[in-house]
């Protein structure tokens, strides 16, 4: 019988062409090879993304206020010769680029985790209060301790993000049913409003604080050096490793809490781990670069159009797409305007929003 002819075992009774067993074996073969094919395709896609990321990173090192030819960049990277170009590459551009890759990957992963945890495709990691917590802490740092400069805010930003997330999670997980997604969203909104109000109050009363925070709040990699990266990379790395381990459990949770538990997944424990990973990733990224919330929202959507809903693939894809997007946006921000540079937070929105809207219009969306 021909392969094109639709025949399901459901209506096998009407199928007089071939014995059932032959049809089934045939279909099974096709299905096994299709599964293997998908596997290969997804692996290849991930490798291609990694290659694209490497390209973007090199581009990001090559492009800047002083144009350095690509050959010189590669040469300086492979064999640092102590020249001025080499020191620019190694001391200024490489740390910033690596930080961008880490921050992008972290934000992409945090977004995918948040959407997987809440089963809500418009959830972004900020729901846990990470952004408002970091902002409140940075405002405090400037107001009370007179700190200035992106580097000085890192610890405050991270601590603020972590404390806010712990409070939101603690409030959301009271009572019998635990930290359900709806509760987390409500708790995050409530606490986020309080922190936002605090930020408003301080910035209105103190012009100096406002002048600092208005630049921090855009989200930027300007002036981030090796020091920033060295402070934050352990958190980001831990978060990335933890996040990539959570794929199978998130896959189970996607089937509903009862079935997840029946399959042997620990629903509450997984939720707590996911929240921890989000704090490490999003808190770390926000502390280093300011709130770039849009990346966490759109990257999982982009990644999902390659991988479908399988979290084991979605998570690494989200990390890679996030890193590519952020590095590209940071590089583009340095060249689009003649005077100064455009912050990465602005560029990601300018690039990302049209892509996002295109995706939304193109795809048939299921209900929430």
């Amino acid at each position, binding site marked *: 019988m021909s392969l094109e002819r639709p025949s399901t075992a459901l209506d096998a009774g009407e199928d007089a062409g071939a014995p059932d067993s032959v049809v089934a074996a045939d279909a099974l073969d096709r299905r096994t090879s299709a599964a293997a094919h998908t596997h290969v395709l997804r692996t290849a896609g991930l490798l291609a993304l990694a290659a694209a990321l490497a390209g973007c990173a090199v581009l990001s090192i090559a492009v800047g206020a002083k144009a350095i030819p690509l050959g010189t960049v590669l040469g300086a990277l492979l064999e640092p010769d102590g020249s001025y170009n080499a020191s620019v590459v190694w001391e200024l551009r490489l740390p910033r680029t690596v930080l961008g890759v880490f921050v992008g990957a972290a934000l992409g992963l945090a977004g995918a985790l948040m959407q997987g945890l809440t089963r809500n*495709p*418009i959830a972004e990691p900020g729901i846990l209060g990470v952004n408002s917590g970091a902002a409140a802490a940075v405002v405090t740092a400037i107001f009370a301790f007179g700190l200035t400069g992106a580097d000085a805010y890192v610890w405050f930003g991270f601590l603020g993000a972590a404390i806010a997330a712990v409070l939101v999670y603690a*409030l959301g997980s*009271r*009572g*019998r*049913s635990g930290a359900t997604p709806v*509760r987390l*969203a*409500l*708790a995050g*909104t*409530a*606490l*986020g*409003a*309080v*922190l*936002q*109000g*605090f930020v*408003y*109050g301080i*910035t*209105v*009363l103190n*012009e100096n604080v*406002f*002048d600092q925070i*208005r*630049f921090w*709040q*855009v989200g930027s990699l300007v002036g981030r050096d090796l020091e920033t990266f060295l402070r934050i990379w352990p958190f980001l790395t831990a978060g990335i490793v933890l996040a990539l381990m959570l794929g199978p459990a998130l896959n189970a949770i996607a089937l509903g809490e009862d079935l997840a538990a029946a399959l042997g997944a620990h629903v509450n424990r997984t939720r707590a781990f996911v929240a921890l990973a989000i704090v490490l990733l999003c808190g770390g990224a926000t502390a280093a670069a300011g709130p770039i919330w*849009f990346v966490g*929202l*759109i990257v999982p959507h982009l990644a999902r159009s390659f991988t479908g809903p399988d979290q084991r693939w979605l998570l690494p894809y989200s990390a890679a797409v996030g890193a590519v997007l952020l590095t590209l946006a940071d590089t583009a921000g340095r060249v689009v305007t003649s005077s100064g540079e*455009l*912050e990465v*937070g*602005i560029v990601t*929105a*300018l690039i*990302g*929003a*049209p892509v*996002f*809207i295109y995706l*939304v*219009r193109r795809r048939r*969306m299921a*209900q*929430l």
Partner: protein
Amino acid sequence: MTLTPARTGAGSDTAAGGAPGAPPGRRRRSTRAMRLAGGRVSFAVRPRVAAVYGGLLAATVVVFAVSLSVGEYSIPLPRVLWALAGEGERLDLFFVRDVRLPRAWVAVLVGAALGIAGGVFQSISRNPLGSPDIIGFTGGASTGAVAVILVFGGSLVQISLGAVVGGVGTAVVVYLLAFRRGVQGYRLVLVGIGINALLLAVRDYLMTRAELTEAMTAHIWMIGSLNGRGWGEVLAVSIAAAVLVPVVLALGPRLRMMEMGEQAASGLGVPVQGTQVAVMLAASALTGAAIAVSGPISFIALAAPQLVRRLARTNGTALLGAGLMGALLLAAADLIAQQALAPTQLPVGVVTAVIGGSYLVWVLYREWRTGHA
């Protein structure tokens, strides 16, 4: 006007017209039918709801009176009343009639508008966090206003105009982009998020490129403030409210039907699509008028419908109640914003965020402690 008990509220037995209601002994529920004009107008009244609404109204009057009286130049209540009647010292007249009265009116009207609009959006999106943000309205309005402040250095009226143009323009763009063989609510939300992100990027760009003092003006506008609002603003927001509030309230019963699901509502004879568009337009326009006058004050639209629902124990959206609650909340918040750090005047948005947020935290804490689902 008569107040007679009825078995099922304004159900079939009152629809007949002037027929007398059921005898008191048959009363089962605490719902009463209120009839006006000899039975041509009748509606259901529940004592608890009536008491809550009455309480809200009374509290608003008290806050209103206090806000006319206190301030850097304190005026005792009797002199406030004299000043309202047009008598008394020149300073009394000036502060009460030209400064405090219009500001109090703006607070009440804007609060009511935000409360009602919040109720509408929560009802339509069937989401307790639903707000005009879902169609990018707020983002558009604030970007429009900030652009006027930072690029053109405009006056208060021009800023309002910028906000309205920005808000309406954004809402239209979002709607058109979401349109593809009809508008699906979910696609609307996602497109709104995308457009909002673009607008915020533009706004952030402007904010970081502006002079500090101008950026601060824009910042305060974005928080939402009633400082220096006068009779012009009262007039603007009154006209909007007079036109739009009756429209929205009249559509309220249909909204409550639609909360049961669009199909069930259609089955009961509600024109779902038309109602949705009409009520969203009206609610957006209300929000627009409020934002134009005061800036995007946070939390009133979110909290007012939820609070009144809990107080009055209604199971559907209570738009009138949300309006009353919104008026009280904003009037009280503005009083605090003026007095908390006097003589420094905080923008009222700071107070609504901190106090509203704390209150919501407390409500959630209490509700979840007992282990309710």
